[in-house]
């Protein structure tokens, strides 16, 4: 735990001032867990550094991210948007050509949390793939509780307000009491399982797309390397790996090349022979 009492007090005061939220004692773990990604996103090593920077140079946008990270409990749909737009605009059209013989795709959402990512991928694929194509999405998370939640596919009103376009809400969800549940189309497209990325991975058929977003930041460098190596073994040679907005394989694992994917970045296994990249082949 790198959070000092003074750091915690600073954060408590900030959140109270900006969002009228009271963080009581005992919430240090929450501050540490929620703010570490924010620290990484702004290029700092830890929460202590983040607090120090905010005290030296109060920056409203960084303060805003801190407040958001501590006050929002809901995961957003289509988080960061660009990877999903990239699928529709650039990646899927290419894959449709590359897989014309089989007309099926396998996708892995490798830190699926409460399910917004795999169901979001399902909606994207449903709309972008031509008729006659099939796809399967494997969604996994280390938390059995999260997997159960995600499998149930039931979201509160607050959760469906987060980044889910209204037209997709009405097309793919059903009202169930005060909640919204994914419909049969989405449910049958995603298979959930519990899986620990830091442990040896179970054998799985290779994937065409892997989303490994915002989970590597929680691992040390050695574990990051082994995760990327193990994930790479489950990717087809031309498959694409998507990481979180502030994450990269550069400096961690040189068996990947960064390739443009629409306006996002993705990673492809480096091979000895030249591989057709976006726009060529």
């Amino acid at each position, binding site marked *: 735990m790198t959070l000092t009492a003074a750091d915690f007090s600073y954060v408590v005061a900030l959140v109270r001032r900006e969002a009228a939220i009271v963080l009581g004692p005992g919430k240090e773990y929450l501050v540490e867990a929620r703010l570490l990604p924010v620290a990484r996103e702004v290029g700092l090593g830890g929460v202590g550094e983040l607090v120090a920077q905010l005290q030296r140079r109060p920056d*409203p*946008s960084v303060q*805003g991210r801190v407040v*958001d990270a501590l*006050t*929002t409990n*809901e995961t*957003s749909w289509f988080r960061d*948007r660009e990877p999903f737009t990239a699928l529709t605009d650039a990646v899927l059209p290419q894959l449709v050509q590359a897989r014309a013989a089989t007309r099926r795709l396998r996708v892995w959402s490798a830190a699926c949390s409460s399910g917004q990512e795999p169901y979001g991928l399902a909606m994207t694929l449903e709309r972008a793939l031509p008729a006659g194509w099939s796809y399967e999405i494997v969604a996994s998370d280390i938390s059995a509780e999260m997997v159960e939640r995600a499998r149930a596919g039931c979201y509160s*009103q*607050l959760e*469906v*307000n*987060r*980044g889910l*376009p*209204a*037209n997709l*809400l*009405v097309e793919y*969800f*059903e*009202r169930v009491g005060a909640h919204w549940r994914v419909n049969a189309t989405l449910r049958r497209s995603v298979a959930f399982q519990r899986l620990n990325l830091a442990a040896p991975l179970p054998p799985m058929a290779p994937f065409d797309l892997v989303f490994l977003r915002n989970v590597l930041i929680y691992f040390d460098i050695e574990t990051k390397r082994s995760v990327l190596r193990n994930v790479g073994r489950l990717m087809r040679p031309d498959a694409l790996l998507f990481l979180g907005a502030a994450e990269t394989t550069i400096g961690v694992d040189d068996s990947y090349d960064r390739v443009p994917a629409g306006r996002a970045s993705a990673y492809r296994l480096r091979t000895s022979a030249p591989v057709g990249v976006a726009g060529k082949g």
Partner: protein
Amino acid sequence: MRLILRRILTQIGFEVLEAEDGQVALDMLARMDEPPELATVDWNMPNMNGLEFVTAVRKEARLRDMALMMVTTESEHNQIVRALAAGAHEYVIKPFTAVAIADKLALLGLVPNGATL
């Protein structure tokens, strides 16, 4: 609720004008040289409700670029379908958070200059 929405939108960087019902809003819009970028619309209002307002706005070519976002407690599946069919671009179910509003604005491509969402 109108105050909270006003505060959120102001913090994001919008200048906010208010109308208490659809008819007042239409009158205000008619007097403007340039329509606003966004109208947030409740469903239940006297004189002209949200659905009627959306329908009326979508009939006017000069208001074509104004985004219409329902912000309402009405949350039945068929109501959302009707609102979208009438021409609403987005739909926020109350209660909402500031972040949710910001997310929806991003979906609509509405980020005022310099604002961070």
